[in-house]
């Protein structure tokens, strides 16, 4: 039972006390983002093509891997995720004028990325099944010949069991409805604070707490229905 390290905004009245070293890094990163966004907007205003591209390239290089990984959690297929990531940055390029700077750039970027990925998955569900929808093509999926359901294998092969467990839990994550899925992803995988998730989602911290609780409850319920053995300690 290890609680996560504190990484809250000290200005937030609900934030915990103390500032971890990670906070300093985050703040420096946020400041650099702000400068780059400022340069981008100034270059655009001045019609400075070189400056515009250079600033945007820097933002791209800083976030491309993180955004690709975030998108991959929704899309599951790396190549498809790359296309969606490209769409995210095209949107960011077009909409950066509208970024108010009230929140951190990365929370705004995450919002664009999460919305784009959710829309993409919703559109894909309406399309007929194609090759990349095959679960066996997904990153980290169990290999051919391995059991694809349940944990009844008699072989006490821990790596294999783990792969199977991962497959099941991914399936359940994918089945979570929005906005619970995104709230859970931002917390568990991106390790964002409640405040940051609230900024990304455009809601209050109380709503984030409630969504997180419901997301975990739904996850547990689906697991109990499909694979209760996984909940046993």
């Amino acid at each position, binding site marked *: 039972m290890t609680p*996560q390290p504190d990484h809250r905004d000290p200005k937030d009245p609900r934030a915990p006390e103390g500032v971890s070293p990670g906070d300093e890094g985050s703040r420096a990163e946020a400041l650099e983002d702000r400068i780059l966004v400022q340069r981008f907007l100034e270059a655009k205003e001045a019609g400075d093509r070189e400056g515009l591209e250079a600033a945007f390239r820097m933002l791209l290089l800083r976030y491309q891997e993180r955004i690709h990984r975030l998108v991959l959690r929704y899309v599951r297929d790396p190549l498809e995720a790359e296309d969606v990531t490209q769409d995210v940055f095209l949107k960011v390029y077009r909409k950066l004028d509208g970024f108010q700077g009230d929140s951190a750039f990365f929370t705004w970027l995450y919002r664009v990325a999460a919305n784009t990925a959710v829309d993409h998955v919703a559109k894909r569900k309406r399309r007929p099944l194609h090759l990349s929808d095959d679960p066996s093509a997904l990153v980290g999926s169990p290999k051919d010949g391995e059991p694809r359901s349940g944990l009844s294998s008699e072989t006490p092969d821990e790596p294999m069991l783990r792969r199977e467990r991962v497959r099941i*839990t991914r399936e*359940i994550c994918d089945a979570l409805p929005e906005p619970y899925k995104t709230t859970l992803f931002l917390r568990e995988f991106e390790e964002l604070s409640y405040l940051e998730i609230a900024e990304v989602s455009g809601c209050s911290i109380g709503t984030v707490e409630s969504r997180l609780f419901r997301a975990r409850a739904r996850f547990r319920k689906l697991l109990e229905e499909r694979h209760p053995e996984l909940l046993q300690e």
Partner: protein
Amino acid sequence: MNGDDPGGPAFPPGRTEGRHPDREDLLLQRYLDGELRAIERRELEARLAEEAPLRDRLARIERVQNLVRESDPEAAPLGLGFADRVLAEIRKSGDGPVEESPASDPGEPLRLLRRWTAVAAAILLLLALGMLIRLTVGTAGGDGRLEAEGRSRHRFEREVLEILDQRAERLESKAGPKTMRNAADGR
């Protein structure tokens, strides 16, 4: 601690989804997510040390948390030149700089280098090919020369032989009647 549901399980089966989280649920969740203030954390840890049902409740939330985290896909690397492709797409879509200025394109030196490397490689290949052909032809030329030499020697020998034959014929034709005459004369 919630007086109505002391130590009740977090996410109790069958009634989790629509249930409004109580204060205790949120407290435990905030604890695991590192969202408690130091004083709240200390208070909760003191209670956890005392109350086994509360510990069980926390363990249930933590179990779900761990399973979710385990499902995170492994990072897949982006294709090489991803940033270049995005910027090219921006230019193509007309949102960015309309004309691609070589000076303003940070990828241009790299592209030029690649182009010149390709040209240099092609030249080297041609040179190598030329040398190879020359060597092959050179070897073949040596054989050819031998053949040519052989042919011309043969022709020369034939010509010499023809000349010798002609001379012999001429000599025979001169000496022939005389000899015959001599023979006829009884010499």
